């Protein structure tokens, strides 16, 4: 995952400055402006200048100089490995102590040093609070018990069956609310059982459960029948996702709609107070069908050559052999999870990419232009990513 890894040396060197920006996706997904590394840099310069002017009369405790060195070293390691602030918390904490420690070394009166410490801390507090760090990650809120409400299934079901999930969020937080013998699998994360891999064997084994297999998936109201059960369109979409695993959802009337106030709270946060209640999950028994290996053309898609032409030009963002080809309305799509990138090749001839932070997709050219090299991909200007936060565009 290169989400927060700098693309250029300039971006790496200016990361402390970028961290001051009140933008999301700079060094962590949420907005978390942080001035302390800039303060640290300025304070180190001030202390060094003070030492030069006063000829070594400024004493810096060994602890401060040692921590400065290891923090700088850790900063480099961090940028190389992930650049993700959640994996750098220890040094985000240490940077604050070092700022005040360095202020205390400055050749100023006690009053001035204390005032400067209060001033810089106030600036940092104002920056942090301006982005409201609380509830920043929440999609739903756990208020009263239970932590995530779900109506109990009414239809009798085998309590040793396998329940598969297919949504990107697995909603596995609900698993402890079901009987403990139920076996859970987010099957779409797994390679299909037909492949020769350890994971495929595990998938095959859990799907062969003689107690049966059911599907647990968030219901989509707009695609439901009047009885809140999955309509024909959504059943087809689900079947497209699970056919590689030898499963099929045939009968809507065998499904059960389970109301969930937990899902309601999620929906309310996402769409505002006008969202109506009655959100829930579908629990549907699945039937088994014969497992078939997809032929290569079907697996790679009919525009494989176009995808590969882009991948060769920009392997950092479109890493070869890391994305499956999905059939979408009007074309094909490859999603590169490691770089948060989507690449579309459309039936109308256009080729587009979209970085996850950008609002707009970017047209790369036509299929022919990509294949003949007449539309080279500029990997250094990825809309929504390249440059400092105020240069990235949307």
């Amino acid at each position, binding site marked *: 995952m290169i989400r927060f890894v700098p693309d250029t040396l300039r971006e790496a060197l200016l990361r402390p400055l970028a961290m001051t920006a009140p933008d999301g996706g700079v060094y962590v997904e949420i907005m978390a402006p942080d001035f302390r590394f800039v303060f640290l840099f300025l304070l180190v310069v001030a202390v060094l200048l003070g030492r030069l002017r006063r000829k070594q009369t400024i004493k810096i405790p060994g602890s401060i100089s040692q921590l400065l060195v290891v923090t700088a070293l850790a900063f480099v390691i961090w940028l190389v490995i992930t650049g993700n602030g959640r994996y750098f918390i220890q040094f985000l904490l*240490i940077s604050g102590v070092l700022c005040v420690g360095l202020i205390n070394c400055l050749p100023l009166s006690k009053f001035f040093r204390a005032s400067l410490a209060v001033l810089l801390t106030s600036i940092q507090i104002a920056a942090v609070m301006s982005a409201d760090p609380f509830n920043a990650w929440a999609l739903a809120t756990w208020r009263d018990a239970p932590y*995530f409400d779900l109506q109990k299934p009414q239809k009798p079901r085998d309590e040793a069956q396998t329940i598969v999930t297919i949504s990107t969020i697995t909603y596995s937080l609900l698993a402890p609310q079901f009987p403990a013998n139920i076996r859970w699998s987010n099957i779409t994360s797994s390679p299909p059982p037909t492949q020769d891999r350890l994971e495929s064997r595990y998938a095959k084994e859990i799907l062969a459960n003689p107690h049966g297999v059911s599907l647990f998936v968030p219901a989509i109201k707009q695609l439901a029948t009047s009885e809140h059960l999955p309509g024909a369109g959504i059943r087809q979409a689900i079947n497209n996702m699970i056919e590689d695993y030898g499963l099929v959802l045939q009968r809507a009337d065998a499904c059960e709609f389970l109301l969930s106030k937990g899902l309601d709270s999620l929906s309310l946060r996402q769409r505002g107070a006008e969202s109506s209640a009655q959100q829930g999950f579908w629990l549907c028994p699945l039937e088994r069908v014969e497992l078939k290996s997809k032929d290569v053309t079907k697996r790679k898609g009919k525009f494989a050559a176009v995808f590969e032409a882009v991948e060769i030009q920009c392997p950092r963002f479109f890493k070869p052999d890391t994305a499956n080809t999905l059939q979408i309305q009007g074309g094909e799509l490859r999603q590169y999870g490691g770089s948060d990138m989507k690449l579309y090749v459309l039936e109308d001839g256009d080729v587009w990419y979209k970085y996850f932070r950008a609002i707009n997709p970017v047209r790369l050219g036509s299929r022919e232009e990509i294949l003949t090299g007449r539309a080279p991909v500029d990997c250094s200007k990825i809309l929504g990513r390249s440059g400092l936060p105020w240069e990235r565009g949307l």
Partner: protein
Amino acid sequence: MLDIAQAGDADMSHVTGALRQARVQLEPWILTLIAWILFAAVPWLEGGYGLSWDALNHHIYLGWTAEAQRFDKDFLGAAYQSFQFPYLYWPVYKLATSGWPGETVGIVLGGLHALVVPALWKIANACIPGRAVHDTMMRTIAVVMALMSGVVLSLLDSSANDLMAAIPFVWALAYSLDKRLQLAGFLGGISIAFKLSNGPLACVLPVLWLMNSERPHWSRLRDMVVGCLWIVMGFAVVYGYWGLVLWRYFGNPVYPFYDEVFAPLRSLTGWSR
């Protein structure tokens, strides 16, 4: 008369010194208590505990599997996050399934997060070692400044374990400054067990030990090697059981990472599944 006055001054100075010492000793505990109260108040003031994408996806599930692993039943129950070290999620899982309202779970989880405060104070004390009121004030500001991170504060009403996993690392830095390398190494190892992404960052600990020592060069190197062995020991003690579980089911103690690295070991040991 002069002697009596001097004796009185000496007594006063002794009392003042003792009071100053008591104040400094109380500093970390007072700060920790205040932090705990404030941390606990965050979910209460926010009207509940946040359930993030990760919480919906794997945090609660991992806490559940911490009580009894489920690889014999489930496969990718929480997608590929199912293989993460689960034990730090046990408190939030237990609180959730025990029927606690979200507003009050900060009392427990805020208390766990507040364990970082005495370590931060210890580091602040090493950087600002004076005993005057000014120094107390500067250390307090240093601890406040340390915690004033959007990332850190955002975790006070979230079930993410990133702050908890960083706490042993901060203690490792604090004890490194105290030259207690064995303890520092052990805590560094624990932090890696809690979160493997702490591993590369832990490479800075031996550098700190090298710089912080006043012993001859060869002794420094020997200390560094001993400290590194304690890192390995801390990691093995805390991660060992989970690593064995992953080895048993997937032939790789850090599955799904570095799987090709463990392929020769699987062949060598005849591991099969």
